[in-house]
């Protein structure tokens, strides 16, 4: 079920198993049949820990979504609320409990990831605290996503930390890292850059002091922990990711390891069903390294995916051809035994070919002929807009990243506003220009803001404000634009990025090397001391801490054995950054393998969206 978690350098399934065990223990505490009432936000992350079958084994008979009013009828002994510790949810729970008339039931609350006195106080005020038999917490901080990836799936993390100065997520981060250390040993070295990183490291060190004496005797699996604030590198998430996985996320959005795709492309693939109606439900696919083909292509630049797919197609069809060579009963038997695997590979190939086609339609310039075909087939107007727009957008992004005309009003952005393109797209570009220019001149900034308010409405005033508060958008002060220095020192722009057989991380953005990953790379070799100047230009302190290991746990490293670093992105990480780190892990001479952890998997759009404010409008 979770085989993909064990593939990597570090067996992350241990973490998942620990989480499952705890869940089972809690469920068994509530004897008898149960119904779970879910805080909807939690279902996704929980899906990565336990499927419905596990819940069913422990007598969970019904599942509901938490909402106001009465609970749906269910003939069960226990009602368990799985909720985040939020006051507004407590009010809903109170309403549920009050309106439930059957007296014979036991109520329980499971707080995820931590119980909260404030919430319990609220329940008490509402007069329902006494109705609960069990109030417990389910410590789910870091959720294993893939063999090298952990996420806390804390949606508002960046907003909380950088806009609202709310350090709740950071506390959970520190706790999560403590749990991780309890399972995988104390991490001897901690590096960090940024205010939040400093805060998390401080909390970790304090927690370690608090638990002094109860030290675990596990040989450390991780050699280094690197904590990075997202606001150290605001640029990377704004850029459009150009890896296969990154593009899927940019275009369709990957949530909790699943992507929902338009069904048309997948409809005709099924043979023998004739011309049934087109499925209307979006096609849902799980994306992780358990799928062999996906593991192979997800980290490729999209321009290299086509070749990889066709190569794979050849291999698979060759494998199917084998059957003609199978002469003896033994050979046939062997062939048949491989069939399930081959069929899985074939359907996987079909899926990814469809996805690649979908993406290609939206990203690359189609030939006239194809356009015409599309025109004739679908009755669409001849309209190259989608792909042209993608290309134009990319061009502008690359101009900004290379520092072309970043101090002037950009006509493309202006046009986008005139065309009323999606606001998020406009904001992404604007922020990018601001970041690449170390802020915009008053005139330019005001112009953009005015255009936005006039076009998209005055209510976006608050959103613009938020962007300014987080530094994504800012006014250029007297200080020099230091972005070019940073770009040059860290080699953020590589002119000759090789997309097919990459030799540098810059292939993930077809030229731009993500700043965050460059920092990671430099830390491993030759060390941050070589870039002191640049580090000073980036916000927040950088630091190094050591954690004492109990005697006898110092690793004796084998010749040529790689070191393992856990890179923790506070405030989110993009798939392309993950890919870049995977690339570094695989580089032969890097001597370092990376495991990635984050508060949330993000892309530019979801990120900007999390910073937007939508005042609930009352039409007067």
């Amino acid at each position, binding site marked *: 079920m979770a085989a993909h978690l064990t593939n990597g350098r570090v067996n992350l399934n241990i973490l998942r198993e620990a989480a499952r065990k705890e869940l089972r223990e809690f469920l068994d505490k509530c004897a008898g049949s149960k119904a779970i009432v879910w805080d909807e936000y939690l279902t996704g992350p929980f899906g990565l820990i336990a499927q419905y079958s596990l819940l069913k084994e422990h007598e969970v008979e019904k599942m509901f979504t938490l909402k106001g009013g009465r609970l749906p009828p269910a003939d069960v002994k226990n009602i368990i609320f799985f909720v985040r510790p939020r006051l507004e949810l407590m009010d809903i729970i109170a309403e549920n409990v009050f309106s439930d008339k059957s007296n014979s039931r036991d109520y329980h609350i499971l707080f995820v990831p931590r119980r909260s006195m404030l919430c319990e106080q609220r329940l008490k005020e509402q007069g329902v605290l006494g109705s609960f038999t069990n109030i417990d917490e389910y410590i789910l901080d870091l959720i294993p996503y893939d063999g090298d990836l952990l996420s806390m799936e804390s949606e508002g993390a960046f907003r909380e930390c950088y806009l609202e100065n709310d350090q709740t997520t950071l506390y959970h981060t520190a706790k999560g890292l403590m749990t991780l250390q309890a399972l995988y040993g104390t991490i001897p070295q901690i590096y960090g850059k940024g205010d939040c990183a400093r805060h998390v490291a401080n*909390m970790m060190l304090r927690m370690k002091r608090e638990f002094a004496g109860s030290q675990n005797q596990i040989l450390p699996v991780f050699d280094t922990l690197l904590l990075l604030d997202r606001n150290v590198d605001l640029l990377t998430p704004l850029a459009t990711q150009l890896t296969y996985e990154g593009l899927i996320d940019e275009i369709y959005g990957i949530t909790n390891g699943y992507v929902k795709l338009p069904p048309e492309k997948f409809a005709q693939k099924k043979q023998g069903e004739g011309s049934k109606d087109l499925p209307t439900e979006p096609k849902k696919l799980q994306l992780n390294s358990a799928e062999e083909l996906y593991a192979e292509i997800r980290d490729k630049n999209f321009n290299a995916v086509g070749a990889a797919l066709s190569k794979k197609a050849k291999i698979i069809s060759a494998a199917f051809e084998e059957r003609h060579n199978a002469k003896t009963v033994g050979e046939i038997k062997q062939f048949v035994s491989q069939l399930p695997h081959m069929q899985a590979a074939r359907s996987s190939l079909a899926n990814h070919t469809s996805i690649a086609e979908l993406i290609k339609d939206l990203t690359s310039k189609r030939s006239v002929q194809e356009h015409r075909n599309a025109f004739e087939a679908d009755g669409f107007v001849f309209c190259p807009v989608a792909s042209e727009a993608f290309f134009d957008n990319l061009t502008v992004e690359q101009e900004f990243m290379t520092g072309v005309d970043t101090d002037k009003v950009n006509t493309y952005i202006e046009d986008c506003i005139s065309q*009323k393109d999606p606001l998020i797209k406009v904001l992404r570009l604007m922020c990018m220009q601001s970041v690449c220019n170390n802020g915009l001149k008053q005139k330019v900034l005001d112009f953009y803001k005015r255009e936005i308010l006039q076009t998209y409405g005055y209510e976006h005033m608050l959103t613009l404000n938020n962007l300014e508060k987080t530094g994504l958008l800012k006014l250029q002060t007297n200080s020099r634009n230091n972005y070019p220095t940073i770009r040059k020192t860290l080699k953020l722009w590589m002119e000759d990025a090789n997309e097919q057989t990459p030799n540098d991380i810059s292939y993930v953005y077809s030229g731009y090397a993500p700043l965050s990953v460059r920092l990671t790379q430099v830390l491993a070799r030759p060390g941050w001391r070589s870039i002191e100047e640049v580090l000073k230009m980036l916000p927040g302190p950088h630091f190094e801490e050591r954690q004492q290991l109990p005697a006898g746990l110092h690793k004796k490293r084998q010749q040529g054995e790689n070191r393992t670093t856990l890179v923790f992105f506070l405030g989110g990480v993009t798939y392309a950054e993950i890919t870049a780190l995977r690339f570094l892990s695989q580089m032969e001479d890097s001597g370092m393998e990376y495991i990635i952890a984050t508060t949330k998997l993000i892309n530019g759009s979801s990120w900007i969206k999390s910073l937007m404010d939508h005042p*609930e409008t009352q039409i007067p």
Partner: protein
Amino acid sequence: MAFITANWNPLGEAFYRKVELYEMSWVLRDGLRDSLVAAAPYGGPIAVMKESQCLSPSVRPQLDIYTASGVTMATFPWKSGPVVQLGWSVSEELLCVQQDGTVLIYDLTGAFLRHFSMGQEVVQSHVSEAKIFHSPYGTGVAIVTGSSRFTLATNIDDLKLRRLPEVPGLQGAPSCWAVLNQDRQTKVLLANGPELYLLDNTCCTSVVLPGGSPLDGVFVHIAVSFSYKYLALFTDTGHLWTGLANLQDKLSEVDTKIRSPPKQMVWCRRPQTQQPSVVVLWERLLLVVAVGGDTVQYPLDEACVCVGELDGVRLLSPSRHELLQEVPLVCEDIFKIASMGPGALLLEAHKEYQKSSQKADEYLREIKEQGMLGDAVRQCVEAAGHEQHTHTQKALLRAASFGKCFLTNLSPEAFVSVCRDLRVLNAVRDPSIGIPLTHTQYPVCVCVCRLVYRRLYPLAIEVCRYLKTPEYQGVSRILRHWACSKVQQKGESDEVMVRCISGRLADSPGISYSHIASKAYDSGRTELAIKLLDYEARSGEQVPLLLKMRRSQLALSKAIESGDTDLVYTVVSYVKNEMNRGDFFMTLRNQPVALSLYRQFCKLQEQETLKDLYNQDDDHQELANYYVSASYREKRLEARLSVLQSAVDEYNKAKNEFSSKATEEEMRLLRFQRKLDDEKGAGLLGLSLQATMEALLASGLQKQADHLYRDFRVSDKRYWWLKLKSLAEKEEWEELEKFSKSKKSPVGYLPFVEVCMKKSNKYEAKKYVTKVTPEQRVRAHLTIEDVEGAADAAIERRSEAEIGTVISHCSSSSSSSQRLLLDKLQRALTTANRK
């Protein structure tokens, strides 16, 4: 050493020995007569109190607590009511059962801990007899009242009183009774004259002893073994019946020929016993009755008390403290006169060796010939554990060590562990400590805990260090205990106390200072508690106590330090209720972390408070933002406008010119929209400026749109886009052409081409292609699907990239014109390349 068997007495097939543990250092004026005496098992402390009926009512009895060696630990006059029974709990707390059913609990130093009652009805009927017993659930108390009713509490730490059913025909006190522990149930076995009854929670059953031969006579004494497995009953005819406690089997029946009722009766057994026995005590005689029927008599010259142990019976007299036990088989094997056991030979060999006699070799040879040297060593090691006297222990261990030299593959583990255990045992057996534990009774944890109960901290720490107990479980716990008792002492100043405690505890891991602090607070030393809390590493732990002590400011900063935001919220909501609003805001102002958390809380829960918060901080920018979002909650336009006006004012105060202007514009726009809505029913209110103009153009209100364009200084580009799109949408092609000629287009002419093509009007689109700037011409041609035109334009511009774009647009069809075109482009490309 020759005399080692001097105190041995044969009993059946085994030997019994009486070993002196201590010469008692206590001075008892009247001996142990007429006193309540309670001695805790496992060499525990002894409590002595004069029986109240022996004293005149005006005299207060004295309660004394001694160690097993008779050293006074506490002594104080008894001020409460008459005591029926004394006893010890498993954690060495002294239980005093009073006549009125109250049980008072004291610690080893005589400090009162707590009390509980055995039931309301007991106050009336009085306790006539009480027993304190130990079970796997802890320490229990059983009483029988004057009205012949039994009440049980199985665990004094989790008090649940159980009143047992009535016993039919029982008047007054039963002749004797005992508490049994069977099948995880606590029961009472009682005798009423010649009849026996078993009482459990629900019923009272009459029982008969198994094994025929009904005893004549009345039962006068019952004894249950240490493990609750065996039972002994004594009748007034002098018969002693022994059997299993489940009343299924009889072991034996012995006639002691002594008819007077015994004072005390105790089982004497040991694990792997050969010859269990019952020790019966009279005023002047101690009789050991083996189950097999053999007896040993010990005359007594003073009043004694027997204390049952796991592996024997301790005899407590005013002058001496002795241990009566069956001699362990190994000891018997070694020390029995003329024993030829391997251990005995080894001991002898070693003795000769020390005398440098060659006999040593002979003995050794003899053992070796039998191949028994390993056994010999094992015997000596084991026997050493069972011996009380250090010189015997040493002799045996030396012999074992000597024997070990001639063996190659003997595991040293047993030897090492016995040496280690003995070291600890000898230390605690020392008369100054007075815990006469035997090796059989020795479980380490209990030993250290008991030193701690006695406040023998240095020794406890020594033991922990010696045994290499992990700091966290051993030394730290001891130090915590020490500190807790330290803070309860009066006299020393806070500073001295804190320095003393922190100095001692400094680098011990896992010390909970908050625990110590709460002890200090409980004993009324708030200042000391606060000072101690400073040393607590876990900030989270400090908070609840600080709140309890009403140090909310300090609690708040500690909560922030912990990083646990929930904790911060908790303190904030506490502080909010405790202080008036002004002070509360001031407090928050000094704690930015708490302030921003509280703001978050207000955003979700108390919008109004949020406003006050910003006001108080003169945060005009945030206040303005607050008004902006508040304006959207207003249903009426006037109200909305007035809130927006507040926003404008605040933006002005914040010197945010842009925002104040933008807000003013929004107000103007809203007024305009309302006016138009009223006049024409246009439904514009709430739309953005752009959307408003769009709607106006769509419904032909050109003039109004133009007005907005000028009034709001809309950028030309955007307005042009808007207009041409709207014209194309309405397919007003002539108007569009006119508009294109009205003045030079600020957006260029490619948009004209595009909007036409959007409506699939190639004809109209073509009109504008020529006007497009050279840079965009290729694209314009491509937009109208004119590949050839695009090719010409590209070739003219000699742009590599553009030629490439055109090539990619060329279909791969094999029509000759296409092929020609491709060739042409390829050639142009090479020239462009060459350039």
